[in-house]
C-alpha cells in the first residue's frame, strides 16, 4: 500500500510537470487576452508531432528535436493569433473562445491528416526500468522531470529578468495600468503566444515520451490544464505550476479509490471546488 502510494506519487509528479508546462501558457493567455484558450491542448499535440518529424526523418534524439518543435509550435501559435484571433480580439471574449474551439479542431484534423490517427512512438522498443524495491522508474521519467525543471526555471528567469517578461506580468496583473504606462500591447500579446506555444510543445513532447503520440493526446489533457490554471489563479504562472503538480498528483492518487477511467473527473471536481470555495485560486496577491 505504502509503496503503491509512493509509485503513484512519482507518476503524479511526472504528470504534474507536464500539466504545469501546459498551464503556464494557458494562464498567461487567460490573464492577458481574457479568454480560455481551448486549442491549448492541441498546441501540445502539434509540438509532439513536430518533434516526431525530426526524430523519424532526421534520426535526431528526442531531446535534440525538442527545441525545434518548441520553435515550430511557437510559430504556429503566433500565426493562429495573427490570422484569426487578432481580427476578433475586440469583439467579445466569448467569440474568441468559440474561435479557439474551431482552432482546436483544425489543428487536430491537420495532425490526423498528415500523420494518421494510429498511435505512434518516438523510439520503439522497451526501456528497461530501474527498480528500487517495489518502485520502478524509467530513465525517460528522470529526463522529463529534469527538462521540465529546466524549462520552469528558464520561464521564471524570462518573467523576472527580461523587459518583455515583466511587461507580460504587468499586463496579466492589471491591464489598464499596464497600458497607461505605455507597454507595447501587441508585442506583448505576440510574445505571450510564442512562450505559451513553446511550453505547450514541450509538454506535448514529454507526454509523448511517457506514453505515445495520438491526435487526441493534447485534447484529453485540456481539462486538467484548465483545472491547474484555475486552481493556481488566473494569470499567475507560479500558481499554474503549483496547480499542475497538485492536479497531477491528485489524478494519479485517486486511482487508489476510484477507477482510472474517471481521472479527468478528479481534475474537474477539484476545479469546481476551487471555483466555489476560492475563485481567486490558491495563491493570493500579485505575482
Amino acid at each position, binding site marked *: 500500500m505504502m509503496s503503491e502510494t509512493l509509485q503513484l506519487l512519482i507518476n503524479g509528479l511526472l504528470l504534474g510537470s507536464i500539466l504545469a508546462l501546459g498551464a503556464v501558457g494557458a494562464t498567461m493567455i*487567460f490573464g492577458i487576452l*481574457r*479568454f*480560455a484558450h481551448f486549442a491549448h491542448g492541441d498546441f501540445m499535440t502539434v509540438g509532439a508531432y513536430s518533434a516526431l518529424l525530426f526524430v523519424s526523418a532526421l534520426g535526431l534524439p528526442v531531446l535534440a528535436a525538442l527545441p525545434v518543435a518548441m520553435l515550430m509550435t511557437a510559430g504556429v501559435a503566433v500565426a493562429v493569433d495573427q490570422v*484569426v484571433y487578432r*481580427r*476578433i480580439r475586440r*469583439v467579445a*471574449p*466569448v*467569440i474568441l*473562445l*468559440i*474561435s479557439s*474551439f*474551431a*482552432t482546436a*479542431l*483544425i489543428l*487536430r*484534423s*491537420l495532425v*490526423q*491528416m*498528415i500523420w*494518421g*490517427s494510429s498511435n505512434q512512438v518516438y523510439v520503439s522498443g522497451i526501456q528497461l526500468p530501474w527498480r528500487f524495491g517495489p518502485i520502478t522508474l524509467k530513465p525517460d521519467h528522470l529526463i522529463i522531470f529534469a527538462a521540465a525543471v529546466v524549462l520552469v526555471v528558464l520561464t521564471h528567469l524570462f518573467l523576472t529578468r527580461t523587459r518583455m517578461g515583466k511587461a507580460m506580468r504587468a499586463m496579466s496583473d492589471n491591464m489598464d495600468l499596464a497600458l497607461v504606462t505605455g507597454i507595447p500591447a501587441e508585442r506583448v500579446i505576440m510574445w505571450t503566444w510564442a512562450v505559451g506555444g513553446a511550453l505547450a510543445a514541450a509538454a506535448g513532447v514529454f507526454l509523448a515520451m511517457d506514453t505515445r503520440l495520438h*491526435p487526441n493526446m493534447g485534447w484529453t489533457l485540456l*481539462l486538467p490544464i*484548465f483545472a491547474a490554471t*484555475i486552481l493556481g489563479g488566473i494569470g499567475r504562472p507560479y500558481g499554474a505550476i503549483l496547480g499542475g503538480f497538485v492536479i497531477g498528483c491528485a489524478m494519479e492518487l485517486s486511482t487508489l479509490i476510484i*477507477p482510472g*477511467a*474517471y481521472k*479527468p*473527473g478528479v481534475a*474537474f471536481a477539484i*476545479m*469546481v471546488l476551487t*471555483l*466555489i470555495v476560492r475563485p481567486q485560486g490558491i495563491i493570493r496577491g500579485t505575482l
Partner: protein
Amino acid sequence: MELLGLLSYALFFLNLVGIYAILALGLNMQWGFTGQFNIGIAGFFAVGAYSAAILTTGPSEDWLGGFGLPFFVGIIGAVLITIPVALLVGRITARLRADYLAIATIGIAEIIRLIFQNEDWLSNGVRGIPGVAKPFGVGNGGYLVIVGAFVALIYVLVELARRSPWGRVLRAIRDNEAATAAAGKDIARFRLEAFVVGSCIMSVGGALYAHFLGFVGPESFRPLYGTFLVWVMLIAGGSGNNNGALLGALIVWMIWSATEMLAGLIPQALIGSPSAFRVLLIGVLLQVILVTRPAGLLPEKRPPLPGASR
C-alpha cells in the same frame, strides 16, 4: 431507383436536421437569450438519448433496461431525468463567468460521457444500447412527421418565451447584468430557469436521436458531434434568433453532409483521412463566419416593447 435512393437520403437527412434544430433551439435559449456559455450540449444530448433508450427497450442482461415503456413516456422520462441533472449543473455553475461556465460545462459533459462509457450495468459501456425502435412502427418518412411536429412545438414554445416578459428579463441579464439586478430581478433564478429549460430541450433532441438511429453509444456524444456542430449552427444562423437556429441547422448540416461527398471526391492520398478533412473544413468555415459575420445570417431582431409604437 435513383430517385428512390435520393428520396430515402432526403428523409434521413431531414430527420437529422430536425434533431439538430432542436438542439440549436435549446442552445439559443441558453446562449442566444441569456448569454450562458454552455459547451456541454453533448452531455444533455446524451442524458436524453440514454434515458429514452433505457426506458423504452425490452429486458436485457447487458444494461439497465426492460422497462419497455411507450415512446412518449420515454420522451417525458428523458425530460424528467434531465431536470435534476440540469438543476445540479446550473446550481454549481450559476454564478460563473462565461469562460468558467464554458470550462465547467464541457467538463460535466465529458464526465457524463465517461459514465455512460464505463458503467456497463447502466449503459452497456462502449458497446452501447441497440434496438431502440421507432415508435408506432413508422419508417424514416413517418418519423420525419414526428420530428417535424416536435421542432414546430418547441419552436412555438421558445418563440413565445422569447416574446414574453420572461424572455425580456433574460435578454436584459445578457446585455447588462448589473442594471437588471438593480431593477430588482433575481438574476440567479432566471439564469437557472433558462439553463434548465434549454437543457430539457436538448434532452428531447437526444431522445428523438436515439429512436431515429435505433442505437445509442458513447461515440455519438463526443464534443465534436454533440456540441461543436450545434454551436456552428447557432452562430452561423444567428444567435438570439430562433429562425436563425433553424436556418443554421439546415445549412450547416447541408455543408457537413456536402463535406462528406467532397472528401469522397478528393483522392485519399491528398487528404489522408476523409473524416479529419471534413472536420478541418467545418472548422475553417466557423472561423470565416466569426471573422466576417459574427452576428450570423439572420441577426437578432428584438421584439417590440409592449406599448411602443411601430
